[in-house]
């Protein structure tokens, strides 16, 4: 294949769009040197080649992964798309090229730079999502549980099965400030929506009381003779603290309005509460507007 060193693909930011980039590269026997999401501007000297999304092409690529490589590779690619690796599109692309060449063996090529980098990025994602399973704090407004998080990776799809299962009969929302997205679960259904702004009502006395009790528990549980702040910091880095009740000192004065208000930017996508299967070809990686 000719290696055109100046070739750059640009795509619409959807998972399917990325699959189409892979399709294009194979169909035209050309190798791009980068793949760019839509929000990155063309620089003066390189204009990117726009790859149009096409559901059929995307499905062909996506469905061939478990057959030609392995189901695990498909899973890795799906997860890779949720990571915050800055060059994740190109990593996935390179990984797939390797995979189509070596077959299922690619999953054992841990010393290869691409495989190693993609696995690292995915590991970062899954570890972060696992941390949030514990570190998320809900506040209760009436009957609705609301939590705010600021993750680096797009962890909501991974958190969804866990919380939908645990809080089956609740109504809850997890707002991802970094990606301006929210996971909303009500009447046994989960959906992901774009949310630009979230205004929370004043918390009531019960909520304040339980926050106080929790802080008290948190502070009593530590044994003084064993204080080890460095150890705590490495297990629970400061960046998580902002949204955690036990570290919140500004005596909880929230905005003085009546109910939870969402500023919804785009329409909702319903997702299956128990799978990340919703990540189909139309899935868009959320970027801040």
């Amino acid at each position, binding site marked *: 294949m000719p290696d055109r060193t100046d070739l750059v693909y640009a795509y619409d930011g959807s998972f399917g769009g990325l699959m189409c980039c892979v399709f294009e590269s194979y169909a035209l026997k050309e190798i791009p040197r980068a793949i760019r999401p839509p929000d990155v501007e063309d620089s003066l000297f390189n204009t990117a080649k726009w790859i149009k999304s096409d559901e059929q092409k995307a499905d062909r690529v996506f469905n061939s992964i478990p057959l030609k490589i392995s189901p695990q590779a498909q899973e890795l690619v799906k997860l890779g798309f949720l990571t915050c690796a800055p060059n994740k599109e190109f990593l996935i692309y390179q990984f797939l090229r390797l995979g189509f060449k070596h077959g299922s063996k690619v999953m054992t090529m841990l010393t290869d730079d691409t495989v190693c980098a993609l696995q690292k990025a995915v590991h970062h994602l899954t570890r972060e999502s696992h941390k949030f399973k514990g570190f998320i704090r809900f506040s209760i407004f009436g009957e609705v549980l609301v939590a705010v998080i600021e993750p680096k990776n797009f962890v909501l799809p991974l958190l969804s099965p866990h919380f939908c299962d645990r809080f089956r009969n*609740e109504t809850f929302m997890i707002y991802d400030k970094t990606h301006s997205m929210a996971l909303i679960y009500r009447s046994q259904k989960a959906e992901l929506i774009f949310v630009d702004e979230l205004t929370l009502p004043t918390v009531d006395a019960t909520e304040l009381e339980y926050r106080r009790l929790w802080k008290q528990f948190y502070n009593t549980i530590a044994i003084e003779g064993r204080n080890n702040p460095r150890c705590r910091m490495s297990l629970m880095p400061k960046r998580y603290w902002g949204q955690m009740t036990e570290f919140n000192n500004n005596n909880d004065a929230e905005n003085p309005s009546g109910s939870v208000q969402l500023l919804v930017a785009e329409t909702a996508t319903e997702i299956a509460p128990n799978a990340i299967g919703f990540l189909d070809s139309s899935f868009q990686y959320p970027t801040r507007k």
Partner: protein
Amino acid sequence: MSDSAKYDVACTSSGVDRSGKQGSLGSANKSGICHSFSADGRCISLLKVLLTNVCIFDCKYCVNRESNDIVRAGFTPLELAELTINFYRRNYIEGLFLSSGVIISPNNTVEQMIKTLELLRNVYHFNGYIHVKAIPGAENDLITRLGLLADRMSINIELPSQDSLKLLAPNKTKESIMRPMGLISAKIQENSSDLVKFRHASKFVPAGQSTQLIVGATPDTDHKILTLTEALYKKYRLKRVFFSAYMPVAEHSLLPSLDIKPPLMREHRLYQADWLLRFYGFEAKELLDEQHPNFNLEVDPKCNWALNHLDKFPIEINKASYEVLLRVPGIGVTSAKRILTARRSGSLDFSGLKKLGIVLKRAQYFITCKGKIMEGLKITSDVAISTLMSNQYQLTSQGPEQLTLFDEPPITREDVQQCLTGQI
């Protein structure tokens, strides 16, 4: 109330996977979830409380002992259930860890605990994790009922020998602790065969049982503690044994004085050894014996073992079995598995190992890749490593490679992480 429960270290919520149920609240996750970390760096996962700190027993090492003059208080079962549910819905906790001082009698105490758990399970439909502490001396029937409501049950042995018990916990006997422990393990066994027979048999402590041993309150050696630990895993099929460095909370002629520092390093070494027993295929007698009854505080137990068995090293990374890889200092479970995976697509060299994320700091002395030792490594013969070991206290002025093997500041971040993830 949690003030007196905090000296209990068993804070894991792991061991059982249970998905949510229609109409109920909660689930359980096999690998455990930490919800926070306290200032002392320990994971907070469960709401750890005492139903009451009133106690008719007089264990010398305990703040709640009858003879201690402290304010006594307690929860009603309803209060405690409400608190648990409200913490759980806010995702503060993974579940409840319920313990209690002994009120009126061991039986009466267990009845109160059963009442609390019944309320949680049947009225509030709480399906999350519950760890409950059995009270030494309570009747079998009551322990059984308690076990059917909980995910994990523990009875703390605390003191590793009958003699120490007699001195420091006059109301407890080996029998009063070991009988319920035996009962629980028998019930778990019985229950697992019941479950095969009747799919709907209710589960008896599905996450198994655990116990805690105090380190440093009595003269018992590490060897004694570790051998006991091994027996508990083998004989009673315990899921976990926890160690707790003795924190002086009481002045007593039989106890270490109040200003003594808790033996944190010793506790840490015991935890490392505990991982070696559970996941690395080591036996207690390989790590310690009558001649060496205590751990070397300078070197971790696995490194120590390797240094005493230099004839078994170096091993070839591309040929060694999983079991052998696990014996290399610096190679943990994850690393060993990654090596096996990567070997399937080609042989590994040192730069490959680095890419796999394997820390060579210690491992380099014990391995070869494709028959070669690491480039630039100065220590090549067994004798050199052995000399290093015997000279370890004078090492500070020597070369950097030599330093890295033994230079171990008291509990580093890496150590703690190793201990939590078991990568030793």
